């Protein structure tokens, strides 16, 4: 007696429901963390501006010898360009705390993703539904590498907008119309496009860490954090020790950077920017905004895709995620 007609449900919509489930469970980390950081930072900025204003009222406030009220009339085209560069740099780097928080949130999210529901036995509920293990694991990859960074980007954009509004208000109090200086649509949109492009780039770069953490999460019967962190570090220590013993021609620096580092820290946003190109920043002269822009240029991003470091990382990440899916099939127990 089939009282209910069978609805047809596409795999895509099942997948989206599973991503939504991850969002329900991790709303605090994914959504509220970046927004709260943005709000707190804006509150501090507002306090700083108020303090500056009060000090200025008491002592008369000057910038580079120019009284602030005269600032607008004293700026020429060259200075204006420098100001834009500095503003862009400020707006980009302002998101740093949100990025660090994103790393921490996603790191622990991935460690618990295939472990917590085994520890509290709710895996038995999820497994009682017609959901494939492949979709389940991939929905968690998507939640950590796409959904969480999208919310972080929203938080960063909110922070930038809030900062610009504060600055405009401050300038307005001093009778300066800051709109043409601060609100350049082309700069802002270009920056947000960059933020959006960075999400898939960071996601691919982060695959080895994501894969490793999910692997530990689905494999460990207890304490996935210890396994995930101690195993690579002990391996690194061992390699260093063997090298110190001069037994083999092993380069421990290479191991720390490419195995331990890539396995644990690739979730840090933009960590694919290599140290050598960061060093180039020191010689960037008086236009660091431009140099940062170059680091994040589409050309530099495209170069990353071609590098073996990037591609081997993607392959290793995919292999570890596949292994976690395989483990997920029959691992339903864990000790809380």
């Amino acid at each position, binding site marked *: *007696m*089939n*009282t*209910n007609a*069978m*609805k*047809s*449900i596409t795999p895509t*919509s*099942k997948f989206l*429901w*599973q991503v*939504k*489930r991850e969002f*329900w*469970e991790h709303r605090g980390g994914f959504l509220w963390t970046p927004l709260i950081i943005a709000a707190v930072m804006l509150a501090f900025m507002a306090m700083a501006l108020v303090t500056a204003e009060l000090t200025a009222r008491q002592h008369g406030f000057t910038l580079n010898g120019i009284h602030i009220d005269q600032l607008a009339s004293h700026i020429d085209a060259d200075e204006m360009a420098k100001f834009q560069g500095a503003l862009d740099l400020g707006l980009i780097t302002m998101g740093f705390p949100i990025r660090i928080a994103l790393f921490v949130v996603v790191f622990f999210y991935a460690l618990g993703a295939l472990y917590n*529901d085994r520890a*509290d*036995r*709710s*895996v*038995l*509920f999820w*497994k*009682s*539904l*017609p*959901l*494939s293990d492949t979709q389940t694991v991939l929905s968690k990859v998507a939640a950590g590498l796409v959904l969480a960074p999208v919310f972080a980007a929203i938080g960063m954009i909110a922070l930038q907008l809030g900062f610009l509004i504060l600055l405009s208000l401050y300038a307005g109090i001093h009778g300066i119309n800051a709109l043409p200086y601060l609100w350049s649509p082309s700069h802002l949109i270009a920056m947000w496009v960059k933020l959006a492009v960075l999400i898939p780039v960071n996601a691919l770069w982060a695959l080895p860490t994501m894969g490793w953490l999910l692997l530990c999460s689905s494999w460990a019967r207890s304490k996935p954090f210890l396994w995930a962190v101690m195993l690579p570090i002990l391996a690194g220590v061992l390699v260093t020790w063997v090298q110190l013993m001069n037994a083999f021609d092993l380069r421990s620096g290479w191991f720390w950077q490419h195995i331990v580092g890539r396995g644990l820290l690739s979730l840090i946003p933009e960590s694919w920017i290599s140290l050598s190109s960061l060093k180039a920043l020191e010689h960037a002269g008086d236009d660091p905004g431009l140099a940062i822009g170059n680091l994040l240029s589409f050309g530099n991003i495209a170069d990353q895709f071609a590098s073996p470091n990037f591609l081997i990382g993607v392959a290793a990440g995919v292999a570890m995620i596949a292994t976690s899916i395989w483990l997920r*099939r*029959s691992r*339903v127990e864990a000790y809380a």
Partner: protein
Amino acid sequence: MTAVVQANGLSKRYGNTVALDNVNLDIQPGRIVGLVGPNGAGKTTALKAILGLAEFDGRLSVLGLDPRTHRTELMQQVCFIADVAVLPRWLRVGDAVDFVGGVHPRFSREKCEKLLARTKIKPTQRVRELSKGMIVQLHLALVMAIDAKLLILDEPTLGLDILYRKEFYNNLLSDYFDEQKTILVTTHQIEEIEHILTDLLFIKEGRIVLDATMDAVGERFAEVMVNPDQADAARALRPLYERQVFGKSIFLFDGIDKARLAELGELHKPSVADLFVATMQGTYA
């Protein structure tokens, strides 16, 4: 009719421990089967194998599918309540209904909402705010709204008070069960469900030691209350089990002619619990 569950030589070991030892099963549609055994007898292992949650040796077919390779497909037709503690504590009731509705092709939202309306559960509540009894009401409402062929219950009422336990089985019988559905249930509270069972499976140390319909159980087994003077005569008939009550002996017999037993004393139909104790004696020794 094709069997709902068919197992041949189903075995499972964990290291040196044999959890399932060459188990054969044949569960037909429209039955309510009680799988009963002491702790560690292999009940949960058997259910896990049927649900595709554990590897095993031997042949096992559930609704014609191999649970190891067709788990996702199978779970459209099979529902499962492990025990009260498995609903994730962070989940909101409303979200749970949305989610199951979103991923399960045989879920009826209307039916689920109707079932929940009979309880005190509100859609905005989280599972962690519900009592144990309410969690099981929620889980049951979700599962009963799914038009599945096989429902597996593993100690579904563990830790609930008698009101919730009664309500649980009453709901299942009145609003869910029909001749197209099959229920496979394990529980330690056998006395509460024996009247709803159609079939009985006893499992002991990984082996099925009794596989019979409840009707057959009634015909095969008999309990006789015997005065001390007749006790030796009763023992000669090789009873399964003997216990003493108020100076009389109660013997449990398997397959002895009822007329013969009636001569020894007062004849009773044994309860499943008595049968269980008799069958499982020596398990923990």
